């Protein structure tokens, strides 16, 4: 299948500062890519390159098979949806008027705008001025705007910032629906709890370089971070410790007799669990894979070390 977005060794400089260097990335149809990075890592620059607002200093950007700044750019843009970070729209117009404005610019029938207002849950407030909107309502309006014309590629820049948990859940639910419908999504975000389940692939940017990309499982493997295992039960010592040591497990006792915490290599997961299950007085085991948060921290720390070595 053809890639929806293809970045090939892309570089972007701003007056000598490298905002992006050597970035290569592919996005398949119907794939949700989580683009992670701290502020200034190059996330927004990458989005602008894909949107065709910026031109790369070197390398090649292809979106839906075309150059986003080439002569097909106009038709291309009708198939893209974009939600910028912190967009605040026109205060004196109503939500409906704002959406109609963008609908006309995107050459879509107005009925679609009204349907989207319904879909994002703004129908009741559509005829109030945007000035009176809460942060969450503005974000919903932005989302409705991004969904105009059923885009094949959706770029969302921090879509959940400032939203209450319910609204965050709505946004994720919407992303899931779009993914099912075959829309590709680039979700640009700080690391957020709960985002894992809604993205297929992760790309971690740091100081303009791609530190890691792949499925979360692949990244876990690559990072080699240990599993966290929490065991509760009686008499967890002696022989058990011996058996676990052989598996390369580190044991952290938390000062209580009836519970221990283990750090086990991912490859030894089943063996370690077997060893634990041999214990007679076992009450409970919980296993926790490295979170996206931990993965991000791992790669980011490595990236910064690398960056300093170059500097």
């Amino acid at each position, binding site marked *: 299948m053809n890639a929806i977005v293809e970045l090939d060794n892309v570089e972007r400089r701003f007056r000598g500062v490298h905002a992006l260097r050597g970035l290569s990335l592919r996005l398949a149809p119907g794939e949700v890519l989580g683009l992670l990075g701290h502020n200034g890592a190059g996330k927004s620059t990458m989005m602008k390159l894909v*949107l065709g607002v910026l031109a790369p200093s070197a390398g090649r950007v292809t979106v839906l098979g075309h150059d986003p700044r080439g002569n097909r750019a106009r038709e291309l843009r009708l198939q893209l949806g974009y939600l910028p*970070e912190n*967009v605040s*729209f026109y205060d004196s117009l109503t939500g409906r008027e704002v959406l109609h*404005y963008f609908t*006309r610019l995107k050459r879509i029938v107005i009925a679609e705008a009204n349907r989207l207002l319904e879909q994002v849950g703004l129908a009741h407030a559509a005829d109030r001025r945007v000035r009176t909107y809460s942060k969450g309502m503005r974000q919903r309006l932005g989302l409705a*705007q991004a969904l105009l014309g059923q885009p094949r590629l959706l770029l969302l820049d921090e879509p959940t910032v400032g939203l209450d948990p319910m609204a965050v859940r709505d946004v994720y639910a919407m992303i899931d629906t779009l993914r099912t419908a075959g829309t590709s999504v680039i979700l640009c975000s700080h690391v957020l709890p709960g985002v894992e389940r809604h993205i297929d692939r992760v790309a971690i940017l740091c100081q303009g370089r791609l530190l890691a990309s792949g499925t979360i499982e692949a990244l876990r493997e690559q990072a080699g971070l240990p599993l966290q295992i929490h065991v509760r039960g009686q008499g967890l010592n002696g022989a058990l410790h011996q058996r676990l040591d052989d598996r390369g497990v580190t044991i952290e006792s938390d000062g209580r007799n009836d519970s221990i915490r283990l750090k086990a290599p991912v490859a030894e997961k089943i063996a370690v669990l077997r060893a634990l299950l041999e214990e007679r007085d076992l009450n409970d085991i919980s296993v926790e894979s490295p979170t996206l948060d931990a993965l991000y921290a791992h790669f980011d720390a490595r990236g910064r070390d690398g960056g300093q070595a170059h500097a």
Partner: protein
Amino acid sequence: MRELLIVANKEFRDGLRNRWVLAITLAFALLAVGLAWFGAAASGELGFTRISTTIVSLASLAVFLIPLIALMLAYDSIVGEEEQGTLLLLMTYPLSRTGLLAGKFLGHGAILALSTVLGFGIAALVILVFAEQATPGNLFGPFSLFIVSAVLLGWVFLALAYLISVLTREKARAAGLALLVWFLFVLVYDLALLGLLVGTEGQVGAGLFRVLLMLNPTDVFRLVNLTGFEESAAASGLLSVMGDQGYPLSLLLGILVAWILVPLTAAAALFSARRT
């Protein structure tokens, strides 16, 4: 072309919603009627004064007011959208930068034109109804010329406002620059010319002076409305230097049109050349 009209329509609607149209119309109407009514107060009587006096006083006040209104209306049109994040969003739509700018000019230009025509038009009607010496015949000519030149003057400063808006990256800076531009064109320029005249003890050539005077759109607006009336000698200050040498009206209006096109083109060029 369609995009242009969509943007213009939105700006115009914004202007109606913000009460800009209402405010400008009322301000102009009150100003004109007030000047017509109180214009005679200087000679110790109340009531409507001569039309020529009204036009002359109107022009000398409008020359301060119109540029200020135009600059305030449009100084944040680009930099404001940039700050609220909508500029970046619009750039991802099938809409060119020139199209956006042109659409905004069309919208703002319509707001300004409508308010000017309505405001001064209402004033003209009031004067026609209440002033004894006013007839449609002697009112229509000078007032239409005044309105046309006022609209052109407004558009000149709209164009300058876009240039400011494209040049700056912060709204506050744009506001400061807009005030500076107003100050320069409306006050400083004439003072500097006066200084030049006094400093050189009138040795500066009449030809050079004419050129310098015609370089400033506000002076051109004054020339359109003040010359041709006998009162102008007293009211027009610097312009009295010109004596009785008339200017062809088409030249003056042409200069105003050039003052619209040049800054607007420059703004469009700079805006398109932006890399972000």
